């Protein structure tokens, strides 16, 4: 005689989360590769200025982790999209899940990946400074180490941004799963809003909303609120999406 077992949501979400963590290390290794590419490109500096006067010429090269940061955000957006593709969602339904536990465990995975990205991104900036310093110790004219607290601040900001971008990626991917129209519509909207200059650019407004923030506390609140709205919205619109097609 086989007894029906009553499911515990918490357990299922936890199992799904563990499943995804073991099954999808590519999510993390792809971040590492992305960051290493950005690191290699950053070795040339992000910009330079030079000045000459008679017999004296000074050229200043600026180094920063900007590129690593932007590559990481790109990765986060794509990671969000990747997790919505049918193959991955179907695999979830090979085991025990319903749509809610599937979403929640995926969100947990994306947040974990965002936190990992948030930790390694500022640290890779550190490594960049060290490598530059070691290769030209005499040419460094300003401080190498970031100010105390800057690392932590950077960690928090990067984590929030990565969480936001992966959340938007997830929404994008799910919309595309709902209707193929969005595959064309979303890039068109993004590119379109860049070209619409007359202050109405939603994208620029959105960027200003987050990037213009001056307090980490307020950024955290804004980001957390955004996640708390966008994720449930995504879950709601896909609650009747059929799987294992």
């Amino acid at each position: 005689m086989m007894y029906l077992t009553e499911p515990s949501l918490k357990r299922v979400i936890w199992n799904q989360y563990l499943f995804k963590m073991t099954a999808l290390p590519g999510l993390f290794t792809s971040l590492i590769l992305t960051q290493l590419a950005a690191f290699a490109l950053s070795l040339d500096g992000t910009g330079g200025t030079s000045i000459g006067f008679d017999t004296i010429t000074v050229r200043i090269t600026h180094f920063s982790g900007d590129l690593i940061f932007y590559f990481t955000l790109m990765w986060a957006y794509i990671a969000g999209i990747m997790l919505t593709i049918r193959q991955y969602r179907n695999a979830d339904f090979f085991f025990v899940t319903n749509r809610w536990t599937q979403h929640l465990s995926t969100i947990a995975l994306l947040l974990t990946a965002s936190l990992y990205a948030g930790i390694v991104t500022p640290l890779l900036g550190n490594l960049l400074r060290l490598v530059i310093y070691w290769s030209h110790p005499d040419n460094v004219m300003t401080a190498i180490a970031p100010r105390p607290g800057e690392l932590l601040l950077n960690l928090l900001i990067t984590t929030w941004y990565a969480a936001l971008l992966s959340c938007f990626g997830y929404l994008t991917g799910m919309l595309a799963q709902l209707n193929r129209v969005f595959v064309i519509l979303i890039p068109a909207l993004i590119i379109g809003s860049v070209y619409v200059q007359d202050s109405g650019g939603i994208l620029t407004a959105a960027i200003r909303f987050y990037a213009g923030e001056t307090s980490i506390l307020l950024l955290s609140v804004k980001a957390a609120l955004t996640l708390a709205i966008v994720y449930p919205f995504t879950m709601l619109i896909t609650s009747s999406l059929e799987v294992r097609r």
Partner: protein
Amino acid sequence: MNVIECRQLSKSYLRKRALHQLTFSIRENTITGVIGRNGAGKTTLLKIIAGFYRPSSGEITVFSERPFNSMKVSQNMIYIDDQITLPTSLSLLDILHMAGRFYPNWDHDLAARMLDYFNLDPLQHLHHLSKGLRSTFLAIVGLAARCPLTIFDEPTTGMDAAIRKDFYRALLKEYLAHPRTILLSSHLLHELDDLLEDVLLIDRGELKLHLPVDELKEYAVAIIGDRELVEWVIANRTVYHRQQSGISRYAAIIRRDEDVLEEARQHGLEIAPVSPEDICVYLTNQTKGRIDDVFDRTES
């Protein structure tokens, strides 16, 4: 107790009708064969039962719950087909461990022994297996999960005859030791008719038959003999199939009916049983006439 109950269940995509007004129920701890030709709607039906698809209309309950988005159904059900792609990073052993996390009745020992029996290396990866071995592995997962509702959608795709036999044997032994409700879809019946208790025959989205396989074996008979005599005996009966073979051997397949049989015997006509496999073929024949007609026409 019924594990599955369907009432007027229909499913359509855009313009295409996949399932039409199915009403049936599946008793607990039975092995039911879901039989039908390719594209008959077997997979659609099974995926609605599993909670993957949503019915367009009608009602369905599994374990007295609507299966779509039901945690209870997902937890007590496993669905095995050969379409599934699992993340390539997982080894066979990883997949078994994962299944063990999810399914409370999971028997890891059994799965490991079966892997060993079929010479499957636990450290191999699913996407490196041949089609047949892949099906074998997934079937093992389906059996070891010991879910109260186990659904196999064409589980033997790519398996060779020996492995198919082993699989059916394993399925039966598992079922005897741990009875559960099993749905087994196939377009072929003859290999598994001994295994089944019930048959659910689907044709073009409609339910043709749902009855015990033993009754299916006596469902129809072939009456063989002189053409005119046979036609006279079976007059006004529904004829599933007519076939002329040789000069005086004309066969008609009809629903078993004692009156007709008695009459046939009196006229010295031969009466032959029809295998369940053939009945299913005749009942679901959707081609125009027979394949022979195609050639007859081109030759004349």
